[in-house]
């Protein structure tokens, strides 16, 4: 019980944590992850990552990265690290579970 939780990997299938939902707040014109006593405002990139890589309907993170690579016309090798980093951060903040 003393190791640091590992980074999210391409083979993981992250889902929103219990009590977390993706919401569009029209009044503020912002997408956000709403969770227990907290929220996180998502910029365009973070929203795209959540939609592509966070379940329930995704195969795994690898498939999400493939999709983002096509959608944003960006080399896969360039974006994969950032996506995994962002997902790990969302996991550590409690918005996502694996």
């Amino acid at each position, binding site marked *: 019980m003393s190791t640091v939780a590992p980074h999210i990997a391409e083979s993981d299938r992250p889902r929103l944590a219990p009590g977390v939902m993706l919401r569009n707040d029209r009044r503020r014109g912002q997408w956000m992850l709403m969770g*227990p*006593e907290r*929220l996180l405002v998502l910029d365009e990139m973070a929203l795209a990552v959540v939609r592509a890589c966070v379940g329930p309907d995704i195969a795994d993170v690898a498939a999400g990265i493939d999709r983002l690579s096509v959608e944003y016309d960006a080399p896969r090798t360039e974006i994969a690290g950032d996506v995994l980093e962002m997902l790990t951060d969302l996991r550590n903040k409690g918005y996502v*579970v694996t």
Partner: protein
Amino acid sequence: MSCALPAFAAATQTEPAPPFAVLMELTHRCPLRCPYCSNPLALDPASAELDTATWKRVLDEAADVGALQVHFSGGEPCVRKDLEELVAHATEIGLYSNLITSAVLLDRPRLERLQRAGLQHVQISLQDAEAGGADRIGGFKGGHAKKLEVARAVVAQGLALTINAVLHRHNIERVNDVIDLAMDLGAGRIEIANVQYYGWALANRAALMPSRDQLLAMDAAVRARLPELAGRIVVDYVVPDYYARRPKSCMGGWARRFMNVTPHGRVLPCHAAETIPGLAFETVHDRSLSDIWRDGPAFTRYRGTGWMPDPCRSCDHQEEDWGGCRCQALALAGSADATDPVCELSSAHADVAALRDRDAAALGTEWTYRGL
């Protein structure tokens, strides 16, 4: 409460950005009698509580003012038979519902009804890691066992669970056990809070204040575990005020994130604001939450930085901690207009250390249970 929240851009210069959440203290009634309860010493009787229709209107007004979440709190909100109805109403109008509870009145059927009504998150307070200490400080026999049972049901139902652990002299040594317990229960989040000395806690300070050694040991234990806990459980750890060098950003800044409605309908910028003399509070019968949020005198009094005295006035941290807590400035420096004396830049900071050391050394063991 601690929330990592982005600041929303204000719509115009005169309109304050909307609050993030409205805390609704549905009642002051509670089967527990914690001597550190943050409720005021003068508790609202059941007969003075707002009725269901009025709470529903207040929920509508919370959505109108732009709040995103509602916290059903108390006292013990589950003593209200209309809790399900209020949660359902909140869900209907798009508010995210949190339940802040001692859990001793909950059971599986009621949790299921609350979940069907749209409840998302349950925060359960634990008084200790073990039943003896927990039931003694809560003044409720069998409470701890019941809490564990309900916590497990919350997780089994797929609701989010937060464990709120309040530390003081009599349980601070078991902080690691409390963390283990929260993880064993499947909580997504734990709040490791040290008693904040308002209300009943202020009256019982000499019986609750931990010693410096206890405090340092606890702090070291928590910090040592944080890396291992990352990704497993979210930890909200609040350093105890009286041992801190800088104040906390109380409520995320006065009248910036939260509104608080008391059982009989007073609208406050924070739950302890009523202790401040000379502040005029409106009720939900006077004006709408939107009006009160915009220009209610108690809300505008300490909003932003314009009210600040020295040393806050010229300090780089003024938009990080907003000068600390007004109620604490009142309790410790004698004036709510002062810099929070927890700040080492305050001229009254030395007095805080003296008070703290005196109360910690008193080793008082007799506390007064809160009562109604």
